[in-house]
């Protein structure tokens, strides 16, 4: 039977079931450490970790580093969104522009963002600029490629229908092509939020004196395992929140979007 056909009651059971594995993990973790199976500098128990985390939050440390990290991520991400969508639309519009940019895209895209770190640090120093550019590089290509694929994938007959209704070139883009491509563009934007978080933490660990990546690596350098775990928990919560928020934005923007997107069968 199709799971979607089950009743609402069953559905709420499913929600609760999803708390089971995290709770079990934390319990096992706590019991292991309490039983003295591992030393606490190696693996502190969850109770201690959450206590440390609470202290770091009250002192303003966690909010401070979170704000700095999110600022960097947002700057790189927004630049990638604007330029990625912009260039994507231009490339989908003109084959000349596509042929001009395509080789560059194919050369730079597969390159790991971190391969750029040495050059970025040489050119821009170890400050925010390098970090933002690195995040930009990670986010730009998924957005760009999804925009291009979204526009190019619009049903030719839908375009014909719009033209026969009197749409000129501009109206076709604004009222048909871009709305049709929106599900793909938004998917690219959502993939990129995860990319932004990943490269952010990496580059902050490499060289930084602030941000969540710094917080974790700095604690490791002083062998403060409780702070390491506290930092990782913050990163996980931030990542989860960003993903949830972007999912909500996606479903709000695409309220009309289902599998039967063109009104066909």
């Amino acid at each position: 039977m199709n799971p979607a056909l089950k009743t609402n009651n069953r559905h709420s059971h499913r929600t609760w079931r999803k708390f089971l594995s995290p709770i079990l993990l934390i319990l096992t973790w706590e019991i292991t450490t309490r039983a003295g199976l591992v030393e606490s500098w190696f693996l502190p128990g969850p109770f201690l970790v959450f206590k440390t985390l609470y202290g770091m939050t009250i002192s303003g440390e966690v909010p401070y580093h979170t704000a700095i990290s999110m600022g960097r991520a947002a700057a790189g991400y927004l630049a990638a969104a604007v330029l990625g969508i912009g260039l994507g639309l231009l490339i989908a519009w003109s084959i000349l522009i596509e042929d001009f940019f395509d080789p560059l895209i194919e050369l730079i895209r597969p390159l790991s963002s971190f391969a750029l770190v040495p050059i970025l640090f040489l050119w821009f120093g170890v400050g925010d600029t390098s970090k933002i550019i690195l995040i930009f590089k990670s986010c730009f290509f998924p957005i760009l490629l999804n925009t291009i694929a979204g526009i190019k994938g619009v049903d030719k007959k839908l375009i014909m229908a719009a033209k026969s209704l009197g749409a000129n070139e501009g109206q076709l883009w604004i009222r048909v092509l871009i709305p049709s491509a929106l599900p793909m563009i938004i998917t690219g934007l959502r993939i990129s939020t995860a990319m932004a978080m990943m490269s952010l933490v990496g580059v902050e660990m490499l060289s930084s004196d602030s941000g969540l990546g710094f917080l974790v690596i700095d604690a490791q350098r002083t062998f403060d395992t409780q702070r390491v775990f506290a930092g990782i928990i913050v990163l996980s919560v931030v990542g989860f929140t960003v993903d949830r928020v972007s999912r909500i934005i996606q479903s709000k923007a695409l309220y009309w979007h289902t599998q039967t997107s063109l009104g066909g069968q």
Partner: protein
Amino acid sequence: MSFITARHIGKTFNGKNNSDPTVAIGDLTLDIEEKEFIAIIGPSGCGKSTFLLMVAGLESATSGELAIEGKPVTGPDHQRAIVFQEFLLFPWKTVKGNIEFGPRINRVDKGICQTLSRDLIRLVGLEGFEECFPHELSGGMKQRVAIARALANKPKVLLMDEPFGALDALTRETMQLELQKIWQKAQCTVLFVTHSITEAIFLADRVVVMGSRPGFVKKILTIDLERPRSRKIHTSHTFRRYEQILKESIWEEEEDGSWERVPALEKRSA
């Protein structure tokens, strides 16, 4: 001078990647009068869709002349609306938004747009579904929206490419009756492509039978049945007679048409 005149129309598609060009239509000549309902039937690949797209101005003929009211067709025009089998509604717009799309982009006053869409929604029987999105509608309802959207520009020509081909048999019969009613109200010329002989006879003033490889007009049959036509007409003697004539005309191709299958075989072995 007829309303639509197609004179020795030919259409050749250039093959992609150096493959052979396809001659879709060889030599097609057809005159259509204003407010006439023309049904076009013929085997798959004989150029029915291509011809419709040419009348819509979405494809150009490679030879011959195509004119409407004496003016050559050069591009798409909101006076010529097209309805496809696949509905192709705008999924992000409501029923109302879809129907108002044409008048809106043609800068018709907002109030007039609303009156227009209200009337059309009533005409196609979609009252109560104004604010629904396409994915909430059944196939028959989607096609009603597509027809209303096409009529919203008050077109002189309505082009329909197998519009009921994706619908189940019962819905299809209902839609045929509705379309007859809609056409009588909307007062436009209709070119209606179908694979169903009975659908063609039921709806049309004249049925055009096309032959293939490359496409041409093989036969034109005038349907002399009183309007409005009801379901009962299917069992009338005259209706049966027309059905017989059209079937024979289509079979004829298959029988003397061993030549028709040869190119297909050649292609496969190549």
